[in-house]
């Protein structure tokens, strides 16, 4: 009586085995599954609970889990949150533009003019990025400070009487520090897109009589735009949420939205409000990024 089920089971088993061996996709996903499951779970679970908590409220030391939009109402009504978010977007946007502009010639140089020891150049350009973010920001504080390296240096050289005050504790200081900290994120994508450009296209442009400037504008720049777009997003998105740099070199005028979020989870101890602010920040940044991608895609389509 038991024979048929066993046989069925066996054939199913062998069929599965055959499928497993035949299908690359199944084998690929099996191999990928540990990484994918861990990463998907480790990202989805925290985000789900973050969003959920943003609809709760904090009462002294208790958290009320009744659904409410009060935090979002407060986030929209409170002028300070809006002002901080706009300032963060502005600082990060400026920083993304500045970093891409100063990094482009560097990436261009290594892609087109360095022929030997390219690897060493690439490592040199990206090396500081891997070292402690905190320490790099801290060294800027040391440099830009009221009695810091620049001011005391210029003073001892007799070039200035009073310390330059705009250096530390200003949005400018935040932009300089962020541009320095994130330069590698700009250089690498731009470099990769420049390196991919078929050199014969440039030769062709030269043969057809285009000068260096024209062929740069008509060939090199359009073809490297994907790298530029990636670079600007790779800088814009994470820097909106930075709070170390504003804390160390920003001063009161350089405080950003992430400082506010951090305070909610620290001193103020209103986690649901902090969660709501974090969600607002994510949504706004995601929307801006999507619009940016859409607009730039339309633009590149028109050029091509």
């Amino acid at each position: 009586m038991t024979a048929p089920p066993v046989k069925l089971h066996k054939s199913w088993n062998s069929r599965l085995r055959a499928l497993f061996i035949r299908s690359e996709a199944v084998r690929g996903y099996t191999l990928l599954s540990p990484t994918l499951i861990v990463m998907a779970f480790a990202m989805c679970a925290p985000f789900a609970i973050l969003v959920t908590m943003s609809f709760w409220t904090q009462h002294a030391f208790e958290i009320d889990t009744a659904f409410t939009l009060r935090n979002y109402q407060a986030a929209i009504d409170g002028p300070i949150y809006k002002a901080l978010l706009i300032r963060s977007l502005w600082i990060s946007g400026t920083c993304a533009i500045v970093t891409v502009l100063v990094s482009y010639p560097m990436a261009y140089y290594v892609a087109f003019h360095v022929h030997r020891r390219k690897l060493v150049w690439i490592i040199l350009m990206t090396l500081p990025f891997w070292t402690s973010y905190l320490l790099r920001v801290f060294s800027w504080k040391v440099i830009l400070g009221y009695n810091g390296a620049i001011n005391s240096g210029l003073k001892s050289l007799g070039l200035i009487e009073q310390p330059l005050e705009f250096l530390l504790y200003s949005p400018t200081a935040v932009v300089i520090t962020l541009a320095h900290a994130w330069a590698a994120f700009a250089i690498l994508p731009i470099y990769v897109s420049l390196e991919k450009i078929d050199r014969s296209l440039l030769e062709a442009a030269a043969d057809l009589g285009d000068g260096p400037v024209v062929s740069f504008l008509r060939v090199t720049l359009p073809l490297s735009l994907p790298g530029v777009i990636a670079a600007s997003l790779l800088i814009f998105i994470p820097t909106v949420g930075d709070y170390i740099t504003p804390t160390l070199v920003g001063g009161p005028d350089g405080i950003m939205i992430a400082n506010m979020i951090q305070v909610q989870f620290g001193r103020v101890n209103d986690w649901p409000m902090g969660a709501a602010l974090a969600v607002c920040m994510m949504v706004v940044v995601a929307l801006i990024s999507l619009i940016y991608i859409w607009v730039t895609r339309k633009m590149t389509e028109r050029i091509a």
Partner: protein
Amino acid sequence: MKSATYVERSNRPLRTYAMLFLAFLYVPVLFLPLFSFNDSLYVTFPLKAFTTKWYAQMLANEPMHAALMNSIRVGAASALFATILGVFGAKAVTRYRMPGRKPVVFTIMLPLVIPGIIMGVALLILMSRLGIPLSLYTVTLGHVLICVPFSMATLIARFEGFDKSMEEAAADLGDNAWWAFWRVTFPIVFPGILASLLLCFTISFDEFIMAFFLSSTEPTLPIYIWGQLRFPQKLPGVIALGSVILVVSFVVVFVSQWLRGRGVAQIPGEGR
């Protein structure tokens, strides 16, 4: 030799710019070692006498040693777990043609672009709702999450130049999949794995934001430094410690990147 057009010709202004750019990248960081030997509580020019007393002070600092050990433990564990996950992921996406490969890789790479504070607070809330107390384990979890994308990227670069016919040859010669991996794939990708381990260790060792939200009473080194920044009289000690960390990080990362790049260049037809 090819006739040199302006494309190939060397460009002096651009070269100068490149040098200035490198200076911009490195000079700010070099101020820390410079002032770490300065015999003054204040970080100002002109420099005072040369001293090594800040380093002596640092060596005698017990809480700093504890924080250092914490960071090393977290860094080693994060590097190991992230690299194991990275090997599975990189092997899968380079070895097999899979539908939906792009969105999957994108998902795994997401922590690269998510602001650190979002990941930090999200994990913090999760831990507190699950009733898991904050410890070095939670910090390690956070660090694994941000290290996996870097490990994957490092390993994919290494695996992509890998000729899968070699593995198939091993399989034809009777090795099972595990042995084929161990005897053929592993020796070839070993530099990549080493590069990934070193890189992940450095990232975790220097990471601040996740550790800030996910650590409790046992600080990692960056958290310890953050705590010291409030006290002006501790500043020179922090600068000395920072200089050591910077120098060590630079060396470790240089070795890691060099291993990775050299490995790729050695495979015929890969790299330039």
